[in-house]
């Protein structure tokens, strides 16, 4: 175990100090932070500007009043687009063409409320109780799920590639011959996977921290659905499972070749599987309650991305989550056993590409 930990430490220490790691981390952080502001840009402004001539009404939510001297000035402001509408003497609303529906409702109800109050009446607003699924957060949840798809995919493929490259570096330079006289192949392989996995988790942690942090700063946090903690935990757990699965595959395939140039070719089956997983989870993010999403979220390795995405996009029964995790853990165990075997047999056979069939028996 000591050997494994030493290898993991070396991976973390050497990689974390490289410019590449720090720069990509910074870029990810900036992108994620920017993402927290995107909904604001698309949903337009939160408040309406309304010109006022004469007495201004009391404060109205989501409306900012601008006082004008006379109707002509207010009319010009509406035409110029300085204000969304103008309220003349609490009687008439000037609009450029048709009045925005929402603004119309706001102004009408404010006007009505003011008159009712003047008449000395009080009214109790209607209470809304949802008896179906909570649909209020559907939009935000779909956005979260899309973001999660991208983050998980890039982190998984990035980390798995580093594992494969590290394996080939050691094999190609024959360091592995010295390493394997001081430790067992599983320690070397395990250490590499654990070390680079920790780096992946650091990346994910930064993404989550920056994402949530900037959501609070941008005010988006108010729109976040309840149960964010569950979504975050699910993303982390599924990242670990998916990473274990794909990085072991990457290491096993990587150990078949001795040169970095051969790596892309030998990794093709793995990258295709990852891309397929990405595509189905993208689909699941769009239709989280569909049968396809439900089924795929149970089947490893698709579950590693579909399930966290589904969890983010909609409510998922606990039983399904447990089943999916159990199946994925079983798949990871199988891949670890087979991958360690392939790695152990292939990593010392330098030279020409080792055929999978030769080492799998």
């Amino acid at each position: 175990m000591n050997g494994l930990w030493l290898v993991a430490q070396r991976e973390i220490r050497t990689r974390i100090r490289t410019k590449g790691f720090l720069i990509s981390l910074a870029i990810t952080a900036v992108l994620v932070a920017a993402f927290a502001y995107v909904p604001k840009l698309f949903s337009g402004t939160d408040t309406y500007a309304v010109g006022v001539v004469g007495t201004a009404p009391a404060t109205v939510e989501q409306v900012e009043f601008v006082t004008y001297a006379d109707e002509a000035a207010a009319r010009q402001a509406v035409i110029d687009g300085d204000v969304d509408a103008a309220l003349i003497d609490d009687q008439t609303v000037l609009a450029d063409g048709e009045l925005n529906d929402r603004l119309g409702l706001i102004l009408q109800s404010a006007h009505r409320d003011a008159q009712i109050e003047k008449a000395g009446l009080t009214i109790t607003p209607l209470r809304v109780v949802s008896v179906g699924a909570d649909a209020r957060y559907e939009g935000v949840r779909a956005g979260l799920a899309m973001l999660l798809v991208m983050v998980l995919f890039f982190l998984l493929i990035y980390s798995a590639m580093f594992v494969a490259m590290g394996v080939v570096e050691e094999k190609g330079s024959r360091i592995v011959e010295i390493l394997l006289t001081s430790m067992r192949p599983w320690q070397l392989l395990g250490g590499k996977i654990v070390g680079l996995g920790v780096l992946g988790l650091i990346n994910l942690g930064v993404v989550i921290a920056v994402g949530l942090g900037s959501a609070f700063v941008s005010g988006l946090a108010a729109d976040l659905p309840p149960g964010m903690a569950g979504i975050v935990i699910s993303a982390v757990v599924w990242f670990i499972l998916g990473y274990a699965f794909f990085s072991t595959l990457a290491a096993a395939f990587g150990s078949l070749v001795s040169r970095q140039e051969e790596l892309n070719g030998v990794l093709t089956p793995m990258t295709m599987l990852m891309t397929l997983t990405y595509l189905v989870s993208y689909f699941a993010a769009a239709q989280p309650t569909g049968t396809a999403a439900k089924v795929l979220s149970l089947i490893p390795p698709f579950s590693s991305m579909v399930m966290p995405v589904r969890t983010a996009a909609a409510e998922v029964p606990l039983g399904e989550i447990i089943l999916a995790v159990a199946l994925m853990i079983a798949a990871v165990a199988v891949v670890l056993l087979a991958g360690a075997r392939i790695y152990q047999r292939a990593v010392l056979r330098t030279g020409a590409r080792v055929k999978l069939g030769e080492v799998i028996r």
Partner: protein
Amino acid sequence: MLDIENLGKRFGEKVALDGVSFSVRPGEMFGFVGANGAGKTTTMRIIMGVLETDSGEVRHEGRPMTHEDRRAYGYMPEERGLYQKMKVGEQVEYFGRLHGLAPAAARRTTAELLERLGLVERRGDAVEALSLGNQQRVQLAVALVHDPTVLILDEPFSGLDPLAVDTLAEVLKDRAASGVPVIFSSHQLELVERLCDSVGIISAGRMVACGSVAELRAGEGRGLLKVVVRGAAPGWADGLPGEITVDGDRQVLLSTDGDDQAILRRAVQAGHVEHFGRQEPTLVEIFREAVA
């Protein structure tokens, strides 16, 4: 004590090793020589467990070698392997830790080795910034850092300048003197002859000769008798076995057998004897003879 017993290895149709056996005692420096592709590297890789043997076994202290035994060995593979982007000091220390040294001990032995190998100023440099000769010194440091119980070095001298060769030779002699069996392969036979207590000559997967340098010479058994006589009349050696060559007023007789005392008497009568003695075959000659 390291015993290599009857190793056999095939790569497909090609027989790489065929019954290779030899032993190296504590404190013994064993030179492993042979043509390219004769089986030196294969043997060393099998000793280090990098390659599996088809038959035979490697024994450490009289019992089959385990992974734990090997962990205490120092190994320098034929193709040098270092992390190119890792710093020299960190790298040597890392391998020390992997071989089971505590952090403080790894730091200390790394400092000592870098000092000894003249790499102190390069300690903070990435390996890729070093010349090949210096990279080789780092490789050696990696093999030595954990104070190995046995040293297995594949071509440690290749590519080193004469000063570096001397440094390395000193280091190896020190290790051997402290009781460590040292095996190294080399094509520099003069070096092997100078350094090694015993030599193994391998050819096409078979050990064709093995023993101390003196034993190998004696084994040759037919060190030529060389007599140099000046001012002798032509024909002085008629009837003696061997060949006469004339070099100015010197006549040189090279003889393979016959009564050396009788030859000496004849030579003294014939002229002024400048040289009389048996020629010791050099390792180069023994090697040529053995692999022929």
